[in-house]
């Protein structure tokens, strides 16, 4: 029963707000579906609330927050039993986002583009967890190698070679599929 409980959102809101979107995306990347991503997101926010005093002293809060989420996910993988991103069906790509993907107004270009993305989603789903994860972090979400090292604890060199193998594998799957590249 601490007096500071009287100001529940002070500081917390300010410190977390700038990172919410990135954290949410990471939760989604790790879990691959909405309900588990939102459970993970919520659990991690709660965990961070309890450790708010730590956060105030962190020089790179964005990376620290991602690490907390990643570790929480890894520790509790069973709870957030990851559904791979096989679920890239038409339904998963709402119409407006299919539209917004297109660089041109031509409907056939849109369709082709959407089709490529669907195939890409299928191919990603066939990767191993390790390869899937590294592509998610680096190529999809744009985390830098150094950040991935800080989040996962794997050295940059390891991340790099894993990334190369993951891309090669991805390209192989896409080629077998008769698709692009």
């Amino acid at each position, binding site marked *: *029963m*601490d*007096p500071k*409980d*009287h100001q*529940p*959102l002070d500081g*917390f*809101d300010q410190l*977390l*707000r700038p990172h*919410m979107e990135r954290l*949410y*995306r990471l939760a*989604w*990347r790790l879990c691959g579906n*909405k309900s588990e991503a939102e459970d993970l*997101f*919520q659990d991690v*926010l*709660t*965990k*961070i*609330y*309890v450790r708010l005093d730590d956060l105030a002293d962190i020089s790179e809060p964005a990376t620290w927050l991602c690490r907390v989420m990643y570790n929480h996910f890894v520790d509790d993988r069973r709870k957030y039993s990851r559904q791979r*991103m096989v679920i*890239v069906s038409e339904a*998963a*790509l709402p119409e407006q*986002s*299919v539209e*917004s*993907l297109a660089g041109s107004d031509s409907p056939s270009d849109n369709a082709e583009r959407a089709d*490529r*993305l669907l195939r*890409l*989603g299928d191919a*990603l789903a066939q990767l191993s967890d390790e390869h899937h994860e590294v*592509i998610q972090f*680096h*190529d*999809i*979400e*744009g985390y*830098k*190698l*150094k950040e991935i090292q800080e989040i996962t604890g794997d050295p940059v060199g390891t991340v*790099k070679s894993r*990334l*190369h193998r993951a*891309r090669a594998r*991805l*390209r192989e799957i896409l080629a077998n599929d008769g698709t692009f*590249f």
Partner: protein
Amino acid sequence: MMNCEQLVDKFDDLMDGSLDAADMKALSTHTEGCERCQQMVSRETALRNLLQEYGDSNVPTPTATYFDEALVTAARTGRKQQQNRSWLKGFGSALAAGLAIWFFSGAFVQAPVGPGTDSGIPVITMAVEEARTVNLVFSSAVALDNATLTVNLPQGIEIAGFAGQQEITWQTSLSVGKNLLPLQLIATMPTDATLLATLKHGEDDRTFRLRVDVS
């Protein structure tokens, strides 16, 4: 001079935007003269762009209020966890001097001790702005895991550390013997009302009452 192998190694740094000017220069000099690497770079870049598009296309955008609600929920749950912890520390410790009001024994048999009224409901009197520690004593004949205690406060009474909260819930377990929960009550306005504490375990529950008379 950068060779093909070195170029492959530098490619991800290029993607990260973390190549220094010298490496950048070496890389473009190499690709100008090496068709294989030129193709590799454009192929990898195209895949990377597509992966990023894919990423943007399949993460749903949460509703505007989702983040607000998530922060509030986190604060509420986090606070509860902290409070559970601090309560558990005092819980089961030796009885502190104070007003022992509730006696809880065996399978939810209520036996109030301490000051009482004719109706059997114990009463305490307080003045406005007065703070007073009330020790809730639960004497249990058996260990109870996963019990829930909910305290409902009448208007005009607060518990220190839980300002503005009318209903407070803890999750805990009871040890065999006397289990103590000290609550610091604060009277904020005149009232004569009943504070309820409900202890729930599985399907069983028992509600304890305390009349608080604030004048």
